[in-house]
Structures are given as C-alpha cells and as structure tokens.
C-alpha cells in the first residue's frame, strides 16, 4: 500500500503541469500511468452503458512513439476504453462517458470538438478486417477524398502509394490496385485497413485486437508493421494475446472488470508484476 500511496503522490505532482481538474482518488491503479511525452491524456474516465458501469475511474496516457498494450480478461472494458479515445462510443445508444480525455491538450469531449477531425487524427483498426467493397485504390483514397486532403489525381496517387508502402502492402498489390479490396487475404485486408487509416495522417492509431482473425504468419507481419509505425504514430492496441503485448508494446495496461489495475513498462509487467491480479492473469491462473 505504501508503494501505491507514493505513486499517487508522485503522479499528482506530475499532473499539475497538465492543468487538470482536481484528481479523484486513483482507485487501485498500480504503477505509473503517465507518459513523459503524452499525446493523449485520459483522467478519471468513467463509462456507463445504461446501468452497467463499464469503465471505472481510469486514467492513462498514450505517449509519442510508443505502443501501449491493453490486456485483460474478456469483458474487462479494454475495448470500451479504446473506443472512447476516438469517440466511437458516440454511436452506441445509452453510452455515457465522463472524465477528461485530451489529445495534444485539446479536450476531445468538449462541446466545440467536432468528431470528424478528431477521428482523422485518431484512426482506428478493427478486430475483423473491414475493407470497403471497393477497389484497393479506392479503399485507401476514401479518407483523403472525404477530408479533401489532396488537390489532384497525382497527389492522391502519391498518397495512396505512400500509405500502402507504409503498411507494407505496396509490393503485393501495386499491379492490381483496381481490384476489390475484399479479394485480398485476411492479413492483406488488415494491412489495407491500416493503410487506409494512415492515409489521413493520424497522430494516434487505435487497434482493437487487430490480429485475432489472422493466422500466425499474417499476425507476425502485422506485428512487425506495428513496430515500424511506432516511429511516426502513437499506438494503443487491445490484445488478447499476452505474447503479442510483450512483443509489440513498450507499456502495458492491465484491465480487470472495468478497473485499470496496473500500468507499467511491458518488461516489468510481464516479469515482475506488482499487483496480485496482474500476476494471476499473466501466469495464466485465469483469463
């Protein structure tokens, strides 16, 4: 308990610079949930679905050039939390989000904030690859088109190519850009979805179990890609696979029944967890 109390004191100190509302008690979160170069800052986030209290007082930062993995048993709220970060929960009826989430200091739940530019800045990749039933080219060009990012066909072509290259898909599809995106393999489709997200130049990319529908080889390919993307983007990834969290992330957050139980350096979480629940989960005692 002493360690936690110390942590809280330290964090509260770090917090003043962020000019945040007075902190509530950070319930039981063990470890340092702040990041030295925070991109997104979440404080005291509560999410209710109707009567269900899905996320309880969670605070977490997502820093520049880092991959934050969110792990935990099914139904622990990690996906819900992720979907708060680009306000995808807005479309869920009966969902209420309280607390403060900022992107580069700007409150994303502010009344002035429009979700359209927010979602361009905070992209998302889903569990099941969901390319649009359009050509590969059109899939990638979709975002730039709706946001008016390019002026002419040449720029758009270039943007599509860069995005596909960054997603590591260009060499495989460059000769068949006009073919439907749905005709690609599962792993290629997921990389196409990543390329589509990259094309609108987001700052943060959220990934909701991006490999759970893929085979091991495609998974390895995506994991490599995540590591490369870290150079340019902040990434938050929800995963069921602890090995994946260990492989791709720098920091890991362990959720349990809506609580953020423990956050820390990935190596520390997996080798020397502080909280009993984290340890039990990681050693496979439940989950």
């Amino acid at each position: 308990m002493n360690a936690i109390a110390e942590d809280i004191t330290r964090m509260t100190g770090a917090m003043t610079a962020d000019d945040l509302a007075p902190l509530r008690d950070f319930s039981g979160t063990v470890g340092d949930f702040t990041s030295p170069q925070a991109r997104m800052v979440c404080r005291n986030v509560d999410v209710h679905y109707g009567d269900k209290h899905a996320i309880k007082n969670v605070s977490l930062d997502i820093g520049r050039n880092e991959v934050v993995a969110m792990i935990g048993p099914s139904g622990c709220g990690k996906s819900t939390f992720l979907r708060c970060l680009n306000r995808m929960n807005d479309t869920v009826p009966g969902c209420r989000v309280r607390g403060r989430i900022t992107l580069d200091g700007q409150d994303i739940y502010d009344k002035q904030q429009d979700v359209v530019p927010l979602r361009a800045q905070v992209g998302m990749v889903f569990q099941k690859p969901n390319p649009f039933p359009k050509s590969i080219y059109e899939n990638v060009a979709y975002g730039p088109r709706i946001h008016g990012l390019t002026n002419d066909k040449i720029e758009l072509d270039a943007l599509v190519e860069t995005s596909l290259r960054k997603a590591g898909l260009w060499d495989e599809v460059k000769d068949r850009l006009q073919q439907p995106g749905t005709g690609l393999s599962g792993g290629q489709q997921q990389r196409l979805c990543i390329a589509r997200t990259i094309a609108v130049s987001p700052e943060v990319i959220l990934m909701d179990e991006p490999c759970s529908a893929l085979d091991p080889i495609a998974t390895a390919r995506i994991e490599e890609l995540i590591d490369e993307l870290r150079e340019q983007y902040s990434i938050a990834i929800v995963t069921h696979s602890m090995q994946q969290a260990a492989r791709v992330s720098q920091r890991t957050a362990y959720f349990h029944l809506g609580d953020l139980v423990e956050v820390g350096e990935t190596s520390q979480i997996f080798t020397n967890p502080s909280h009993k629940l984290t340890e039990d989960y990681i050693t496979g005692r439940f989950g």
Partner: protein
Amino acid sequence: MSSSVLLLALLALMAVAYYAGVKRAVSAAGGPAGIKHLHSLPGYYGFYAALWAGLPALLLLGLWASLQDNFVLSLVMAQMSPDLVSGLSDGQLSLLVSDIQNLARGNIVAGEVTPAIQAAAADYGRLQDLATLALWVLALASGLGGLTLAWLRIAPTLRARNRVEGVVRVILVVFSSIAILTTLGILLSVVFESLLFFQKVSVIEFFFGAEWSPQIALRKDQVGASGAFGAVPLFAGTLMVTLIAMLIAVPIGLMAAIYLSEYASSQVRSWAKPILEVLAGIPTVVYGFFAALTVAPLIRDLGEGLGLDVSSESALAAGLVMGIMIIPFVSSLSDDVINAVPQSMRDGSYALGATQSETMRRVIFPAALPGIVGGVLLAVSRAIGETMIVVMAAGMSANLTWNPLESVTTVTVQIVALLTGDQEFDSPKTLAAFALGLALFLVTLILNVIALHIVRKYREQYE
C-alpha cells in the same frame, strides 16, 4: 358412407397405432429403464407403426376416390343397351351420364327419365355402394395389416428413426413438387393456348403490329369489328405506366429506406415502418378507385387549369397511384439490403472521420446497390403485372402515344377485357388473352431471374 368418415377412422387407427408402437417398443426394451437399449427413441417406433397403419390405407383411399367414379360409370355404360348409346355425340353422352348420376343421387334431372335411364341409375347407385364398401374393407384391412406388421417388426434393433425420417423426406419432396408442378402446369396451359392463337394470328403481327382491335365479327355484316391483334400499343402503354410508377416509387421508396435504416431513431422506426408497410396491405382495387375517382379528376382539373388537354382516364393517374402502391416494396427491400451491409463497414467509415451522409453515399449505398437494383426489378415486375389500378384508371383504348396525359391501355387491362363477359373459347379474341399472358409471364420471369441473380451475387459479397 362417405370417405371423410373413413379418413377419420384411419386417423384414429393411426393414433392407436402410435400408442401401440410406443408401448411395444418400451416393453421390447424391457420397460422404461431399458429405453437406452433401443435404436431410436420410443416416439419413432410409434410413428413407424402409425405410418404403416395409415399410409398404405390413405394412398388406397386417394387412388380409389379418384378412380371409383369413372370405373363405375364405365361399367354402367357398358351395360346399357347399345341402341341407346350409339349415335350420340360427346356432349350428348356426357349429358346422359350426368342425368344418370343426378337420378342416382336424388337430384333434379334435366332430361326425360326413361326406364332405361332409371335402370342405369339404380345400377349406378348399387355399384357405387358396393365400391364404397369394398374401399372400407380394403382400407381397414390394410390399416390393421400394417399395424400388425409394424407390431411384429418392432424390436430394439429396428432402425425406426431412419425409416420414419425417410418417409418424412419423401412427403416433403411430394409437397414441394406440388408447388413446382402447379407452376409448370400454368405455364404449359398458357403456352398451348398461345400456340392455338398463333396458328390464327401470325407472331409478327402480334409482336410488331401497331393496331389493336380484338373485336371479331360474329356476323358477316357486323361493322367496327376488324380483328386486329397488334400488341405494340399494349406493350407501350404498359411500359409507360410502369415507367411513371417507378419514377414515383424508386426515389420515394429509396429515400424512405435510407431514412428509416440510417437516420431514424428506433422509436421512429418502430412506428414508421409498419405504417409504410400498411400501404402494401391495401387491396389493389382500393388503389384502383382512389386512382379513378380522386387522382384522375385531380390531374384533369390541374391540367385544364394549365390549359392542357387531359383525358379523364390517363396513364399519369394510373402510374402515379401504382407508384404509391409500389413504394413499400422498394423501401422494404432496400431497407433489408441496407441493413444487411455489415456494421463493420459503417464503423470503418466513421473511424476515418466520415460523416453519416458520406458513409451513406460512399460506402453503404454502393455496397447495397446491387441488392437495391434487384429489389427495384422485383418491383418493376410487380408493376407490369398489376391489374386493378390500370383497369380502373388507365382506360381501354389502345392508343399508341407518348403523352402520359392521354388514355392508354395495358396488357393486363386487355386480358381482363378479353376474358370478361360471354366468350367463345376458341376464337382468336379469347386466345389472344393467353398470348398476352404468355408475353407478360416471360417478361416478369426474365426480370425476376435477373433480380434474383443480382441479389444472390450481392449476398456472396460479405460471406
């Protein structure tokens, strides 16, 4: 005794057989504790026994009921003195037969009752009674025989479930073939009547002739009955009314579907959708007089106000009302198709910062388009075949015109006109209805095949 009583008796026998079968199976297994040693659940043994008891007897009953009358009649007629029967035409012979039948059943007889007919009627009645008795004996014997056979065969090793399921499968096949065979029968009857028509009127004249005047002179000196069978004005009229209907129904139905599936809250949807679908439940005859009594005069007054010459029965009125009638088809089918676009498509689009309308226009609508086209084609084939509205509102005169304010006629209207009233069933005028029906059938069939093909192809897209 009538065969319906026999039917009830057989059903009762089947019920008895069911319980007997179950009991027999359980006792063969050595009581309720031994049920697990049976190959099938006891109920299957019950059905097995019931099928043995009932099925052969029911088949016999059906066969007997369809053949008994003819068989008895042929016996009666064979016994009649040849001089009474010979020299009669087919029509006269069937009159004689119905006299005999009526007399035997105690009905009023049309013709004169001679002693010969009296005797034949008595003969007929006696033979009928005999045949019915024989049927009873045979059916009950076969039922009891089947029950006994099943009783003897029931043993723990009997694969009763497989047998019963085999029979059920055959029954299902029979019932589904009834629907298919009926369609085939309708098609064949239309085709054969049309062939008769095309022997009298050339195919070229029918499909390319521009004059439609099906009245045929009954007497040589009758005027105004030329008998021209060029169906082009009918096809043109049908096309125009359908086109107007689709111009109304497709935009309105589609917009309604988009609103209901994407924008409306669930409360709005829960009452708006049923109301929209009530439109589909209104009888077409009601639409018909709405078109004829309300819309057509409205259009005429409006047209006269603008200085246009509008006939009181116009293609526009019929098309407008038909369009309203079709709206629920288009909206309901489109709604289904739009809802079938997976939520993940919407999520993917929203996650890229697309607005609801961008998502609709650029992702959902293109994805749903093939299905929507399929739905629209189904609506077109429905509009082409629609009859009541056009009968009441479009008119009878076969004008070949592009002016929607004039009265036109459609294929369906002419079929109605050709077949109402007293008709000779071998005149080209009557047979023309079948040729028109065939043309209609082919067009809607082709449209449906295309539509179903498109819809199916679209379904594969997400699987």
